[in-house]
């Protein structure tokens, strides 16, 4: 079942069109990876999915993105609620300069979800595979954690507000290979409950972790298919050239 349906999406930075007629369906409880060279539009596309681009002046969206059939760009949409449902994990771990507990509790507090807060924080940390490492240090600064732990804390922070979709923008680019593998393993666990969309420059990561993968090229989604097929039998010559390191 499609969680997101994207139809004929164009995106403009001022007069410049950076996404061209993108249409795709993002399946529920799957990991969808978006790959492509820098500037191809993949991060822009990702940020359209929870309207993070709204915060940039002079941007404009044409076309339709529906989350479970509801147009997320419709005027009546509560953007804060959309971003709760569709969380974003950034490239660099960005914990608040607060305790581990307060980092996770921050979102629920803002949303008034303070009932059983301890339980909620614990479940979120467990969900992010961090609980066992931090349960005895919950009130110490999050900035004392390793980068890999910080990124898992950021994932716990997203989980704490009960999202449906987790967007990840290069979530492992600041991490060492071991921390990267632990995030990838976590993603596989999370997809049992959440829909995940990841942007990555690392093609092997996309191949390892995703169920479906799409290649963006000059603002267009040139191919979107099952990951196994895309990496072994791509249908498009641009995909073949990109993933094999050859350009025509």
């Amino acid at each position, binding site marked *: 079942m499609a969680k997101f349906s994207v139809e004929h999406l164009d995106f403009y930075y001022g007069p410049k069109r950076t996404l061209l007629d993108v249409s795709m369906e993002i399946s529920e409880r799957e990991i969808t990876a978006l790959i492509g060279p820098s500037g191809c539009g993949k991060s822009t596309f990702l940020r359209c999915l929870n309207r993070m681009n709204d915060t940039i002046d002079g941007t404009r969206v044409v076309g339709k993105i529906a989350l479970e059939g509801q147009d997320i760009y419709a005027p009546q949409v509560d953007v804060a609620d959309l971003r709760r449902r569709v969380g974003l994990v950034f490239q660099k771990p960005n914990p608040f300069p607060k305790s581990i507990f307060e980092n996770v509790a921050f979102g629920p507090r803002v949303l008034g979800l303070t009932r059983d807060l301890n339980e909620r924080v614990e479940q979120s940390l467990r969900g992010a595979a961090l609980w066992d490492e931090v349960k005895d240090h919950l009130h110490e600064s999050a900035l004392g954690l390793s980068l890999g732990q910080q990124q898992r804390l950021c994932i716990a922070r997203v989980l704490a507000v009960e999202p449906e979709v987790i967007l990840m923008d290069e979530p492992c680019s600041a991490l060492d290979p071991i921390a990267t593998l632990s995030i990838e393993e976590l993603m596989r666990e999370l997809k049992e409950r959440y829909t995940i969309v990841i942007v990555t420059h690392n*093609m*092997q990561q996309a*191949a390892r972790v995703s169920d479906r993968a799409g290649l963006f090229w000059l603002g267009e989604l040139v191919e979107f298919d099952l990951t196994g097929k895309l*990496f*072994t*039998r*791509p249908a498009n010559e641009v*995909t*073949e*050239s990109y*993933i*094999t*390191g*050859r*350009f*025509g």
Partner: protein
Amino acid sequence: MAHSLRPAFDRELSKIRDNLLRMGSLVDAAIERSVESLKNRDAAMARQIIQDDAVINDLRFTIEEECLTLIATQQPAAGDLRMVVAAMNIVNDMERMGDHATGIAKTVIRMSDQPLLKPLIDIPRMANLARDMLKRSLDAFIARDAVAARAVAAQDDDIDHLYKAIFDELLAIMAQDPNTIPRGTYLLWCAHNLERIGDRVTNIAERVIFMTTGTMKELNV
């Protein structure tokens, strides 16, 4: 040819291709010499074929190792990955073809003190066909030519027909005169080895088609 951002990787791929062709020519020579040794009942040549098979076996492991290293270190994808996987399968089939040539050589050693049961006509034909198929299948591999690979596979029918003709003829001879059974059986073994070589070339053709099109399909079933 598209511009490559990975010249070192491309050199590794070329090395695999070159070694695969070298192995192909060694197997081709083994088939040719095995039938030659049969024609002349030349036990010395047959022993040399058996000895030389070790080179083919070693080369198979060398190529496999190169493929494994390339997969582990370079993470080939798409057409490149299919080529490497095809190469790993092709060297396996070629190694077995070398074993079939050795099988003929071993038969020659067993029968070398006895006259041939009948003049060799269809067995050399089978060998020539098999060698031609092998050469063309490897050409198709290099050229990434699925059409040529399909044509190679279709030719296996000719080998099968020759094998059946040899089988029927030898069976008739042996039925008439049971004293001919040992010598008839030796020739049957040789023909059977060539028939299997044809099947192995068909496997190579299947791998070329897979490499080129991404479709895995058994041919000549």
